[in-house]
């Protein structure tokens, strides 16, 4: 009940105060001034401070990203050149290795050929020496034999001659002997 009276009082008072609703809509001058000053403070701050702050941050971020990108680009380029270097070095090393192997093989072959040649030469010289020695031994033995045969034959002949050796028989014997000797 008290609530209702209060509401009734409120209603009559609203009616009495002409344009109670309108006074809510039309701004009092003092509030307009305060509102305008408040907005201008914000507007000034946004225009003079916030916008430069935003742009600076954006710029810094852009620069950082560009910087990082170019750094990455640089690093990539460096890595690539390094890789190329390593590849070249590897290729060089392979060629070098091949060359060394080739050289070794060549020198080995050369050595082998040399050894074989020397061995053959030695063999040939040994053979020749042996042959020479054999030849000289043979001729020496032959000369010895001839000398001894001569002596023996002379001794034998003397003995025969000392016995019954006529002139003609002796002569035949000597000739035959000499002929035989000639044949040796």
């Amino acid at each position, binding site marked *: 009940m*008290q*609530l209702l009276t*209060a*509401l009734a*009082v*409120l209603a009559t*008072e*609203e009616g009495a*105060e002409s344009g*109670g609703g309108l*006074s*809510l*809509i*039309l*701004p*009092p*001058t*003092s*509030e*307009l*001034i*305060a*509102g*305008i*000053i*408040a*907005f201008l*403070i*914000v*507007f000034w*701050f*946004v*225009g003079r*401070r*916030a*916008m430069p*702050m*935003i742009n*600076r*941050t954006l710029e*810094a*971020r852009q620069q*950082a990203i560009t910087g990082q990108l170019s750094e990455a680009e640089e690093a990539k380029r460096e890595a690539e050149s390094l890789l190329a270097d390593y590849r070249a070095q590897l290729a060089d090393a392979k060629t070098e290795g091949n060359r060394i192997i080739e050289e070794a093989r060549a020198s080995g072959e050369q050595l082998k050929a040399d050894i074989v040649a020397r061995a053959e030469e030695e063999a040939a010289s040994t053979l020749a020496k042996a042959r020479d020695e054999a030849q000289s031994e043979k001729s020496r033995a032959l000369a010895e034999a001839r000398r001894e045969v001569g002596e023996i034959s002379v001794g034998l002949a003397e003995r025969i001659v000392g016995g019954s050796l006529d002139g003609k028989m002796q002569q035949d014997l000597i000739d035959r002997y000499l002929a035989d000797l000639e044949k040796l």
Partner: protein
Amino acid sequence: MATSECDVVNEVICAPANVNELFEFPTIFTIGGLEFSRTHILMLLAAFVTVAILYYGLRGQRLVPTKFGAAVEGMVDFVKDGIARDVIGPEGTKYVPYLMAMFFFLLVGNLFEITPLINFPITSRMAIPAFLALTTYVIFMFLGFAKNNFRYLIDTAWPKTVPIGLRWLVGLIEVFSIFILRPITLAVRLFANMVAGHLMLTLLLTSGLIFVAAIPEIGVKGTIGVFWFGLGLFMFLLEILIGVLQAYIFTLLTAIYIESSIHFEH
């Protein structure tokens, strides 16, 4: 809120003498015949809070922003790209400071409604919506005439793309809506939303508490207060959404009006 002579002991509820008492505070001081109250102080406080939020959110050239900074930056980008660039186009850059100041100031002003200890949306006073709507009106009127001369008015009143029979009617409606209604609707939309929100919150939360407090006196009937209070809490959450939405709508419409004056084609 101020109440007129009211015997708190005997009456269950002290009704304000006038609904304006929910929105008008007693004068604190007077300068040159102008009375200043809590409202005026709150308006200036809103300005400083807005500046502080922007300052702490944006200061330093942080490559990786803090959480708070990221939130402020998100809103800044939202106004800069989502409203200025998307609605107005490349020319929108010029209007970014105005739109940004408007959005952040209105956002803070609206959210004062649900800020503890403040609990009063400064945008529920006509001064701020009226001033901003008028500024927007001046801007888009100036642009309309500066970019299109008097074709702005003539082509609006006599739209050549409309069939001749309807042309006068459409022209009349267009002139009325663009030259007269736009600033009024812009201001009243924000103002009325905030007034309604503040009324609802005050009514539901205080009456809820009063009913609950009166349970020993009026018995079970007082439990309705629990329901009122619950509804008030729900409205509280809803008002956050409304506060953000109204700031966005005001800024977006400003951008749309500016765009329609720049790219005026009929």
